[in-house]
Structure formats: structure tokens, C-alpha cells
């Protein structure tokens, strides 16, 4: 062995090859099966992709670095189920490019935040967290009241559909108007939106002002959708209840 190494370390390309081999095995063994093992690749039947408005909100969540303080992954531990709700399942984030499971909880987990609070609360909390939670150490985001740029939405949906997220051509072409419709309950476009996204996504003036489509609309729509894209999570609760 020693002799072998003694020779290996004289040949730079040999060393290079040996390093590549040694450092590849683990990754291949752990990653490749995640694409083949049946129970891992399963996608829940009822999983819906984000609406354009929610997707825009997700991009804002990423842009502002919310993931630096908030996880979106309820671990399979009794206390987390107790505090946050049903543990997260792999299928729930199947359409998430990238996943936002997070690695630090300076603030609470957000995987099940959808529907927990009202839109108005979120708006006030985001504009000034300490006005609603005096002890909060979360930053304030008053600039989210500026108008939402929907320019990239069509291309975003198209890109995601190339990556396998089930957006139809119609969804892709009407992405920008669907974003507007979802934030404007009284507009004419809501019918088209409902036809494409069905009953589940909420249509509301998320920021409280139907006249303007703001980044706040998008972010709050996203937060209110978290944990509601599939109902698998509920099966876990039912199991516990019986």
C-alpha cells in the first residue's frame, strides 16, 4: 500500500485521477438513488404549482433572504409537529426550484404558515414587525409596497415548465394578467384565472388595496399559500387524531 502511494504521489495525473475517484463515490451513492427510489420520487396527485403571483412572492422571499432566518421544513419530531403542525413530506416541495428548507431558525418555521394569520397582519408585520410583535427582531420591509414587476413572469413559468413543473401554455402566456387578477377580486380576469388554477388559490387584495399590484401582494399571497399546495399534510393530522 505504502509503496503504491509512494509511486502515486510522483505522478500528478495519477493523483488527480485518484482524488476524483475517491471524492465521487459518496456523492453518487447518495444522490443517484434519490432520482430512482419510488417512494422518493412520488409527487402527490393534488400538488398544485404556485400561481404566478405566488411565484413572484417566492422570488421576493428569496431576494430578501427570508430563508436566512426561516426554515420551511417541519422535521419528523414530536415537538415540531406539536408546535408547527404536520411534518413536511418530500413531495410537498417537488416543484420547488430551489427548495427553501433552510438551515437556521432565528424566526419560526414557515412551512405551515399559510392561513395562520390574516393578510392584514402580514402586511403590518412586514412593514414594521415591532408594531405588532414588540419583542420581534425581524427586519422591517417597508419597500415591499412598491409595484410588482411582472415582466419576467411569463418567461419564469416557461422556464419552470421546461424543468417539469406542470404549467400549461395558457398559464404561461397569461402569467402577468393572472398575477394581476389574483390580487383583484372584482376584476374581469378572475374567471380566466379560476379556469386555469381552479378553486384552491385565494383571490384577494392581499395588501388591502385592490387598485395597486404590489410586491406585498405577491409576498403575502406566497406566505398564505405555504403548506396549502397539497392536502397530504392533513392526512398526518387525521392519523394523529384517531
Amino acid at each position: 500500500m505504502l509503496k503504491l502511494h509512494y509511486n502515486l504521489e510522483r505522478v500528478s495525473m495519477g493523483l488527480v485521477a485518484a482524488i476524483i475517484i475517491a471524492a465521487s463515490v459518496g456523492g453518487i451513492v447518495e444522490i443517484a438513488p434519490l432520482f430512482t427510489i419510488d417512494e422518493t420520487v412520488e409527487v402527490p396527485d393534488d400538488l398544485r404549482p404556485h400561481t404566478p403571483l405566488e411565484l413572484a412572492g417566492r422570488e421576493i422571499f428569496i431576494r430578501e433572504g427570508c430563508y436566512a432566518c426561516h426554515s420551511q421544513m417541519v422535521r419528523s419530531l414530536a415537538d415540531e409537529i406539536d408546535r408547527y403542525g404536520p411534518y413536511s413530506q418530500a413531495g410537498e416541495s417537488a416543484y420547488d426550484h430551489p427548495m427553501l428548507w433552510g438551515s437556521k431558525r432565528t424566526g419560526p418555521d414557515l412551512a405551515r404558515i399559510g392561513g395562520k394569520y390574516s393578510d392584514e397582519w402580514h402586511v403590518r408585520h412586514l412593514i414594521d414587525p415591532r408594531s405588532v410583535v414588540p419583542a420581534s427582531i425581524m427586519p422591517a420591509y417597508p419597500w415591499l409596497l412598491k409595484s410588482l414587476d411582472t415582466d419576467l413572469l411569463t418567461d419564469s413559468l416557461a422556464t419552470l415548465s421546461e424543468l417539469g413543473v406542470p404549467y400549461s401554455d395558457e398559464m404561461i402566456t397569461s402569467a402577468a394578467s393572472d398575477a394581476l387578477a389574483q390580487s383583484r377580486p372584482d376584476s374581469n380576469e378572475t374567471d380566466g384565472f379560476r379556469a386555469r388554477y381552479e378553486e384552491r388559490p385565494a383571490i384577494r387584495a392581499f395588501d388591502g388595496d385592490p387598485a395597486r399590484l404590489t410586491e406585498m401582494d405577491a409576498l403575502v399571497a406566497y406566505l398564505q399559500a405555504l403548506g396549502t399546495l397539497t392536502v397530504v399534510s392533513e392526512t398526518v393530522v387525521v392519523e394523529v387524531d384517531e
Partner: protein
Amino acid sequence: MSKHSHREIDPVTGHETTGHDWNGIKELNTPLPKIVIWALILTFVYSVIAWILLPAWPIGRDYTRGLLGLDQSDIALEDYRALATKRQDWLQPFENVDFSALQADDVWQNNALPAAQRLFEDNCAVCHGMQGRGIQGFPVLSDETWLWSGTPEEIAQTIRYGINTDSADTRYAEMPSFNWMERPDRVALAEYVVLLGDGSVKPNAAAATLFSENCAACHGEAGIGGLENGAPALNDSSVIYGQDFSTVMQTLWSGRQGVMPAWTDRLTQAEINLLAFYVSRLGADEKQVAQ
């Protein structure tokens, strides 16, 4: 490497060098300390045991399950059920409540109160404040005035289905917008409402007529409230949005429809009743503390 070399010996350790010299750096050919080998073996044995007992190695479209047959989600649910069972002792009475029986019960003080407090802090406090004292825009729960009713049963109903939510059983309450009203009238009303709040209003002010025509249906004559329709009393110190002139003008202009979320999907029946009971007593407890 030949064993019988004449390589330099390091005077400090007495070990032989490997004979290389990289710009002054040399290496000793010190044999591997036994402890390293043993540590490798030990950690490897630990790993093999873990691999045998736990799910570990992927094979094709499946993986080895391990002799213990463990599944992390099952374990978590089992632990969770164990906790739920443990809680049954004192949470059970809240399942189908007879609240009056609980009033005197020390199950409450000793067992349920801390749990209720934690549930309140994790779920309700962001809107109603840590002690239920409310924040601007969200009602105070620690006083004796209620939008709906202060009985635990009614409070439980509010918590379960919320106010102005998507739930089919939601309570519904809306303060309509009076933006159609002439501005001078709105100003008069607002001034009137401000005075209602501190009790200094003149009973036969001109605005009083406006008030009884437009507002009394919901807020009661002279704003005494208590109609349990979600409209707050306006003649007391308890406010949601604010009873100063400009806030009232804002309320009249745009109307109000506060949302209290529904908790049926998030909390169990017993937890909701527990919270209802806790909330119903906040006012009384607050008074006690004050005395």
C-alpha cells in the same frame, strides 16, 4: 521504500525522515500510531452496526430497511401520540365542555393554564398581544367588553371559525364605508364618536341624530354596543382601531372588516376550548392582578 536506508534521523523524536526535502520541509517516517488504526476500526464497527440496524444502503429502486425496521415519521407520530395521551388527563375535560364545572377545578390552575398560555403565545399573541391586551387594529381580550360574547362557548365558536374568514361557519361583521356621506356630516359624526369615547358627549347634539339614523342599528343607541353582532361599543375605553378623530374619519371613509383566522384545522377541539376558557378569564384575571 527500503527498510535499510541511511536516511537522516530526527534528533528530537529519534524517527527516520523520508529523505525528501521540499524547500527545507522534511517528513518523518514515523509509523502509524496504533490508536489511529484502532479508532478507524472502532468507528467502522459502529457504522456497520448502524447500517445493519437502520435504513442505510440504497439498492436500485429500494434500500436496506435495517433490522429495527425504523421509520422516522412513524416514530415521530408515535411520540406525538404518547404526548397526546399524556395530555388526555387534563385536556379531556375540554373535549366536550362544561365550562362552569371547570371554573373551580384545579385541573385548570395546575395543569391546563400553562398549556393554554403557551398556545395563546404561539398562536394568538402576534395579534392580541402577549397578555391579550390587544394592539392597534386587533381587539383587546383582557377586558370585559366583547364584540360577540364573553361566554366561553361563544368565544370557542369565534376561535373555531374565525371572523370574516373563508370558513362556511364564520362569524361575519362589517363596518360599512360611509364615503357616500357629506364630509361635514362625517366630521360631525367623528367628533361625536370621539366624545362618546370619553363620556363627555352632549345627548342632544345634532350629530346624535345622524348617529341614531346611521349607526345605532349596529352599535346600539348612544353607541352602548352589546348587540353581539361584531360591532364594538363606542362609549367605553376599549377600542380596536382607535377612537381619535382622524382614525374615526378613516374608519368612516373606508369601512372596516377585520379578519380573525379560523383555527379548526390547526388546533384540536380540546385546545380550542381550552383557549376559549383561557380567553374568557383574561379579563377577570387581569382585574384580580390589578387589585
